[in-house]
């Protein structure tokens, strides 16, 4: 009690940690930070009919969707890229640019909707990435909603056809009146007064997409052949989090050495502070990498993770992640004066980084703002990299953004740690 009272840093952190953690969870699950997570949706309109355009417009108006019909321009002055095709849309989903792509086939406008199965309506194709189980459900739900709200004339028209077929048709006077109403609806659609959608953040989903008024055929284009879809994700996510704890604990040996006087003695030998820290960085990097290897080997042995066919990518991502995490631990240790402070600070920072960075739950579940904040964490970049390797089966060359960020972060953290460690160098 006395020791805790005198270690004010540890005392403050003991109270800050639960508050900070509570706030993060409240933001994610309490929706206080932005409502339904926004889903990126690639749309390929092969039909170019009034109905398909109305449907695309309805989807675009949904606030929970970011509809992309063409890739983003690489720079402001670059020529506008061509619209997505079915092939480029599939490639984009495979690359992780968006979790879902919707293909509106040619002929959709002739039979856009169907009331019940085997009713002869067109079938849309939904390409998805199985690592994000939520996005396709959101898209399918909003697709049904958009079909109803954005194509009222089509709805009415198709309803008339059903009435003709099953009820026996209308009288000429009734038909004239219906036609008049349909004309008004079409004019309203043309004026944009109908089919705008509510823009709400509805959370609809469809258990069986084919049973909606718009028939949808879902097809996984990433992870369709994986034996255990989310194992690689969790191996990376949990692995990185515990790597950080191990790295900070291991770097804490520096504090023990400083406290016992061993550090001062070591610095009186041929060893300089830079070489000492560099040595510890190399050791801690190795330790973290071995820990990752153990984690993935366990995943392979117990959960059938396809480890050995991804060795090059694993080695690259594992070493970069281990390096960044080791440097992170060194910085934490050099910032603290006692083991108690280190324990509190590392717990605080690591749990926050892990929750925001996707180690506890996938980032696609989070509000947009938190997803962006996650990019400030080592966890997010490491998990993204491992996902590229184990989930998307991308080649090692595609890992360059993650490799660059992790190595860059590691170097910067180490340089800062070295700077902070000057306080141990001289009396």
């Amino acid at each position, binding site marked *: 009690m006395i020791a805790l009272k005198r270690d004010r840093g540890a005392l403050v952190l003991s109270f800050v940690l639960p508050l900070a953690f509570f706030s993060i969870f409240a933001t994610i699950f309490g929706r206080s930070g932005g409502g339904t997570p926004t889903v990126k949706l690639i749309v390929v309109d092969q039909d170019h009919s009034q109905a398909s355009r109305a449907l695309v417009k309805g989807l675009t108006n949904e606030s929970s969707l970011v509809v992309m019909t063409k890739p983003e321009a690489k720079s402001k002055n670059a020529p506008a890229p061509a619209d997505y095709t079915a092939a480029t849309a599939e490639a984009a989903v495979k690359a992780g640019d968006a979790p879902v792509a919707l293909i509106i086939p040619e002929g959709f406008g002739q039979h856009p909707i169907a009331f019940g199965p085997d009713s002869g309506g067109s079938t849309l194709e939904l390409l998805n990435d199985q690592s994000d189980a939520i996005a396709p459900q959101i898209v399918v739900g909003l697709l049904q909603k958009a079909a109803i709200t954005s194509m009222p004339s089509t709805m009415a028209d198709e309803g008339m056809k059903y009435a003709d077929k099953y009820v026996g048709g209308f009288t000429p006077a009734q038909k004239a009146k219906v036609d008049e109403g349909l004309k008004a609806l079409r004019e309203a659609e043309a004026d944009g007064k109908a089919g705008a959608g509510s823009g709400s953040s509805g959370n609809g989903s469809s258990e069986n997409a084919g049973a909606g008024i718009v028939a949808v055929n879902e097809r996984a284009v990433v992870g369709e052949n994986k034996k255990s879809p989310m194992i690689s994700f969790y191996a990376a996510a949990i692995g990185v989090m515990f790597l950080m704890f191990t790295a900070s604990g291991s770097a804490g040996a520096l504090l023990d050495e400083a406290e*016992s*006087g*061993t550090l*001062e*003695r*070591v*610095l*009186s*030998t*041929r*060893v300089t502070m830079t070489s000492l820290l560099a040595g510890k960085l190399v050791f801690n990097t190795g330790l973290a990498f071995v820990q990752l290897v153990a984690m993935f080997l366990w995943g392979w042995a117990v959960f059938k993770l396809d480890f050995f066919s991804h060795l090059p990518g694993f080695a690259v991502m594992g070493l970069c992640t281990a390096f960044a995490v080791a440097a992170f631990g060194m910085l934490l240790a050099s910032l603290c004066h006692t083991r108690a402070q280190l324990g509190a600070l590392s717990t605080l920072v690591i749990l926050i980084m892990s929750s925001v960075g996707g180690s506890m739950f996938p980032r696609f579940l989070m509000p947009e703002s938190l997803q962006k904040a996650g990019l400030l964490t080592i966890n997010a970049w490491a998990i993204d990299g491992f996902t590229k390797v184990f989930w998307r089966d991308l080649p090692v060359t595609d890992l360059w953004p993650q490799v660059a960020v992790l190595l860059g972060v590691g170097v910067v953290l180490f340089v800062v740690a070295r700077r902070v460690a000057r306080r141990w*160098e*001289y*009396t």
Partner: protein
Amino acid sequence: MRASRQETETGTALEVDGLVKRFGDLTAVDGVSLTVRAGECLGLLGPNGAGKSTVIRSMVGRVILDSGRVMVMGQAAGSTAARMALGWVPQELSIYPRISCRENLGSFGRYYGLKGQALKDAIAWCLHWAALEEKQNDVAKTLSGGMKRRLNMAAGMLHRPKVVLFDEPTVGVDPQSRNRIFEMIEALRDAGTAIVYTTHYMEEAERLCDRIAIIDHGRIIAEGTKEELVEGTFGRRSQVLARFAGETEAIEAWAKRHGGRVTTETAEFTIEQAGEIAPLLDDAKKAGLELVDLSLKRPNLESVFLHLTGRELRD
């Protein structure tokens, strides 16, 4: 290199010249100058807070000096060459408690750049020197206090330094282990190693040190051999120590009348002949002071220290 030849020619292994170190408004070390020759043991004595540790750390190169310089075998303290020529045995046990003696020595040996057979030989020499051969595989924290101290010393000897700094190496050690430590240090000194030795035990300084420097308030207030210090402080006079029952003010007034002083409740005088004692005591009786204890002795190092600093060494 020229500096190194000079050191060899003069035999000076360690040189401290005009050392000044301030911490804010406090001047911890104020113009300290010292030299230690090869094969010589210099005792650095001083009360707590006198500046000993700062001087020692300056020799190691762990202090940014305000002015002055420290040279180890002709190289600036803190340089790689100076570090390799210097062995430092800190007062605190600076060893790894969870690994064995041999592993401790191996670690420190590697810090000094030793490897392979050279490292093995160095470890063997240190284990023998510290009489820890039979305990070489024991975990450090399981050793007795004396053994830990010896391991602490051995960890600074792996590179066979030419200058060794011992900072109170016998703190908390039983008499038997202390004797063993003395033998280790004497063996080093006899082999030509220059030694700086700080201690709170006067008898250690008298046994081990060829010369002694007394530091107080950051300054060297006396330096020389034991005999030189006694001679320089007391001349041929003897010391009279008297304790009285009575008012402190009366005792101090009486001591002052006879050129003495009161330290740690004892009145202290120096006299040339025993006949000078009787008049002193007569005057004390007249002042109403009741004599409790009286002793006459030839001054020693402790007398010098007490006389110069006004404090016992162990205060």
